[in-house]
């Protein structure tokens, strides 16, 4: 198990290295000049050149990359070209907010999605099943900004129960996490349902029923645990997506997380911020994948890592 973990973590090194090369090259291939944007549209060419020099953007690309890599290895992701803030500091401030939003959304998604999926599977082809599946379809189809703005309209403007934006307290967390969790809840419900249906048709479930176990025990003790394995995979992927920043939700609710940071950085061609954020997201994904694999083993004793 430990050897397996070590191997997986070692494998993350080439992955992150690859990500760093691709990001570094890709953002420099798109047109647009950070020095020009920073100087403002009125700036003269001379000023733009000066800024470019002061940012080291006049150096050859491989040289710029090596500097970047050296600094990353020292734990320094550079400074924002725009506001001069250290990228590590910026991410340290914003990532926890994104994590908070992601976990809350995940809680919403799981608490709705798994029970709904189980209910649909155990009441297959009944009205419960139809209702869950229709809601799931609606849930994945609703545009996030539409849902978010409508939730604000009802709960903030009309009823005045919850704040429209901000991130300070748990009350600020409710609307964004519902907005963000809805689509994930729908995906999880569908996955749970199909996985449960498959398991419920298995021999051991029939055996369990034949033993005379109550239906609750059959569903929750025997079927659910096995049905959860593919669901855990989906949960991991969903959480990864949520942790990489939900741009639309963060924009609608003015939630200063890393999603908005990344989009703003791309629009401003703020290279160090883009690089740092993407590296952080890649690292998060790698870590989550390892975590999911470990969870498999806990859920299914047949799975062993060597």
């Amino acid at each position, binding site marked *: 198990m430990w050897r397996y973990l070590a191997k997986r973590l070692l494998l993350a090194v080439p992955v992150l290295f690859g990500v760093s090369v691709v990001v570094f090259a890709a953002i420099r291939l798109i*047109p647009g000049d950070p020095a020009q944007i920073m100087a403002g549209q*009125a700036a003269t060419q001379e*000023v733009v050149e000066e800024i470019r020099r002061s940012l080291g953007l006049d150096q050859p690309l491989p040289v710029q990359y090596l500097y970047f890599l050296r600094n990353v290895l020292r734990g320094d992701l550079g400074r924002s070209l725009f506001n001069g803030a250290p990228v590590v500091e910026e991410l340290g401030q914003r990532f926890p907010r994104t994590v908070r939003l992601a976990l809350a959304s995940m809680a919403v998604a799981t608490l709705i999605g798994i029970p709904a999926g189980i209910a649909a599977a155990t009441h297959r082809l009944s009205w419960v099943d139809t209702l869950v599946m229709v809601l799931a379809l609606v849930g994945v189809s609703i545009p996030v900004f539409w849902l978010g703005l409508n939730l604000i309209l009802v709960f903030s403007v009309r009823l005045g129960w919850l704040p429209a934006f901000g991130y300070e307290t748990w009350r600020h967390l409710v609307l964004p996490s519902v907005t963000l969790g809805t689509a994930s809840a729908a995906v999880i419900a569908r996955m749970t349902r199909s996985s449960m249906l498959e398991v419920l048709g298995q021999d051991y479930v029939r055996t369990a029923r034949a033993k005379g176990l109550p239906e609750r025990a059959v569903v929750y003790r025997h079927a659910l645990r096995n049905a959860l394995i593919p669901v855990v995979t989906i949960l991991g992927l969903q959480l990864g997506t949520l942790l990489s920043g939900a741009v639309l939700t963060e924009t609608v609710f003015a939630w200063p997380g890393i999603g908005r940071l990344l989009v703003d950085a791309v*629009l401003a061609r703020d290279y160090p911020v883009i690089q740092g954020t993407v590296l952080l997201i890649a690292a998060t994904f790698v870590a989550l994948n390892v975590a999911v694999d470990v969870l498999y083993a806990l859920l299914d004793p047949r799975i062993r890592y060597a």
Partner: protein
Amino acid sequence: MNRVLSGVGILALLVALSLPGQSAPAAPQPGGVLIVGRGVDSVTLSPYATAAPDAEVIAHVAETLYELTPEGRIVPKLAESMPRVSADGRTMTIRLRRGIRFHDGTPFDAHAVKWNFDFILNPENRVPFRGILLGEVASVDVLDRYTVRLHLRRPFVPLLAHLTHDFLAIHSPAAVERAGGMRPPNGEPYGRQPVGTGPFRLREWVRGDRIVLERNPDYWGPRKPLLDQIVWRAIPDDGARVLALEGGQVHVAVRVPPRETTRLALNRALRIDRTNSVRTIFIAFNNQKFTDVRVRQAFNYAVNKRAIVQTVLGGAARVSDAPISPGIVGYAPIQPGGWPYDVNRAKQLLAEAGYGGGLTVTLLHPTGRYVQDAAVAAAVQAQLRAAGIHARLQTMEWAAYLAYTNQPVDRTPVEAFMLGWGTVTGDADYGLFSLFHSSQWAPAGFNRAFYRNPQVDQLLDQARSELNPARRADLYKQAMTLIWRDAPWIFLHSESQTTGVRREVQGLVVHPTERILAHTAWLRR
């Protein structure tokens, strides 16, 4: 029961107390926190700033020598009186107000002014607006503790207007020192903790989220600040910002989208403020490709500016009647009502120029940079078609757009493009010289239209050194008349700033230079 009764009693008392207050004109009440919702956060609150969201916060913390009033007049601020300009126009002597202190307690005097200007003038410090604002200033002298003299390379009348610009606000030299200085490109680390003489001082800045200012109880000015705090919050989504205003979480929402104004006008808790902006929107031709003036004029005849302003912009704009907009020193209406809409005249001019069979042009436009920019471009496209002009629309994300339209004349593939220009100094020079003088062709300057008219060049040069205001205004009028006839642009409109304000907010100023000013604002309770 008792509690209910006493509750009713208190309520009745409150109603009784509030009745006389409603009929009498309200006296300004001190206290309270004003929350302003805007789309973006500031970048830096130092002389390294480059945009209006920086300027409006700086304007509360640090002050300039002179001030541009919303009506377009220049009045003394940290200066005691208007400057004395020598007969040859090469020196400007400014008397400063006495007894003013920075927020850190250090005195404001001629040395502080010299320190600030010297810092900006030093090329090594790479202050972005150095050339634009102080390019003609050679040096600064301290004559006595409260008098400074600026020495100019050549007479440069717009300098007075430039001294009203927030990027030339006077910061505390001691505070800059204590913060660890200002470094290019964005004035870090001082830029995050500015210290000036203004009515408010910085309390907290959470990047990407909020800036909190608090009242400066020792403010020197005659009109003391009333608010306890001003908070700017970054709410990037237009719809969410409007909802936050309706829900009462912000008192002011900037850039309300035109489609929302009709609905908001019905809300009695709010009012919609429409203030002209000094930002002019135009479609520039590549004048070295469109060399025939008849063709350029035909485009102007073919576009119905009035219809665009009424329908696409919901009235939140003003049809251009000159290359710059009202409220700018040197503005004069060149063609009242704007360039006339006359499709037949357009067709006739095109036929004369040899384009009777029609004409195809690629029209570039940004999306989301200016109010309804993409919709305006689409409307222009539809109107041009009636005159036999086929416009292909092409849009680009802003950073790419800026770079694409900034290529030198021998390399640029650009035919026509939409842009906006804010004359933020409030002086015609800034709105005309960079855009129309032939020395300013891109990429050296902002003349991305590659317009050249030697007469215009000469007039713009002359106006820079003309000390007599009336003669100077006349030079600009002549230059603008020539520019108008040459039609290097399709002259579209100047934007209005549409700001949603809650009723309880009093004394707020929406300045034409796209700044929300709350110096004397207060909240009615």
